[in-house]
């Protein structure tokens, strides 16, 4: 399934900036960065739990927030892209 992850991490403190980079890094481990704090991940249910757990451990729930949008298995028709930085399709042939 495709999961869209967005986050807001407070960067007013040094701690916050560190959290931000850790959150970004973790998201990157699971999917691709489509915009600055927006990630698209193709994951199964297990991987998704794992990812959610990892992110939850990282953030400070007082100041930061995470949002997960589950777009399911038939996500092709649900995503449209306009403009620069076209994302790649993880399920199409990957030929470089």
């Amino acid at each position, binding site marked *: 399934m495709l999961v869209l992850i967005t986050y807001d991490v407070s960067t007013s403190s040094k701690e916050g900036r560190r959290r931000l980079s850790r959150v970004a890094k973790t998201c990157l481990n699971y999917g691709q960065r489509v915009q600055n704090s927006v990630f698209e991940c193709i994951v199964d249910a297990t991987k998704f739990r794992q990812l959610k757990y990892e992110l939850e451990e990282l953030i400070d729930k007082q100041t930061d927030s995470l949002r997960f949008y589950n777009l399911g298995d038939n996500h092709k028709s649900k995503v449209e892209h306009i403009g620069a930085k076209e994302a*790649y399709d993880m399920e199409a042939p990957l030929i470089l």
Partner: protein
Amino acid sequence: MKKLLNTLFVTMPDTYLSLDGENIVIKRDDEIAGRYPLHNLEGVCTFGYAGVSPALMGKCAENNIGLTFMTRNGRFLARVVGEDKGNVVLRKEQYRISDDERRSAIFARNMILGKVYNSKWVVERALRDHALRIDTERMKQVSASLSETMKLIRGVEQLDILRGLEGSAAVQYNSVFDQLILQQKEQFFFHGRNKRPPLDNVNALLSFTYSLLAKDVTAALESVGLDAYVGFLHRDRPGRASLALDMMEELRSVYADRMVLYLINKKVVNDSGFVKKENGSVIMDDDTRKAVLKAWHERKQEKIMHPYLNEKIAWGLVPYAQALLLARHIRGDLDEYPPFFWK
């Protein structure tokens, strides 16, 4: 059933593949050309000397991601293998069978039976779909003689006889293969198999798809814990994945040959994409190679009904399903190895 994941093909030269977190990062001239999470991949296949960092090799081995190196023409160079896991008991039984000519023959004959059956159905399909454009008399003859060969194969318990029967079936099948090419006949013809190097367009395509298939089958066998290098029909030779070659026999015609025919008949490839070298060998240019890989990959995603498992699976999982069935038979859970009968 296992989920079919994506395979990453790297065809650009001068690239370097490295590991970053859980991502594979492809660098070219110090620029990042691609970055993909590894958990979406089941194989990475590079064409033409891409360098790979040891960290990535380790990660791939650990996560059962096949990492294969090929030459630009698709000839197999090397594969990264990690720590040997799998099942020793299973592998030892496989070695015992391989040492015993008679038992080997019984294994091999089912695979060859699959091969002949599948070639017959490639011919039969052509008869059904293109009866007006081919020499139907000749095709029917071949189909009938392949059926005859199948009857003979059933009782064989000697490898030499089996090889003989396989050879004669292959000759029959090859004799009409040219007729299955319906388009671009001037540039694409089949007058017999030649390899190392392939000397015409069709042989170049065949060699390339066979090596892709060999790679898939080897990975499938190893993922179920068998030793791809110890075969039944193909005897041991250092560096030769004999069991993979055995198992490939039944898939060659339906998987690779049909792919080649599709590429030509649907004009996915054309003559300008092939370069003839001074020594007579024919190689594909980069765009053609990419087109073949793309078609190959799309075929792998297509769903079929597995005739024995009675389950809908992706074409790309057929080698894995067969490897699983073979392991079950070796282990004694199945009375006989059921070859893949395509219809």
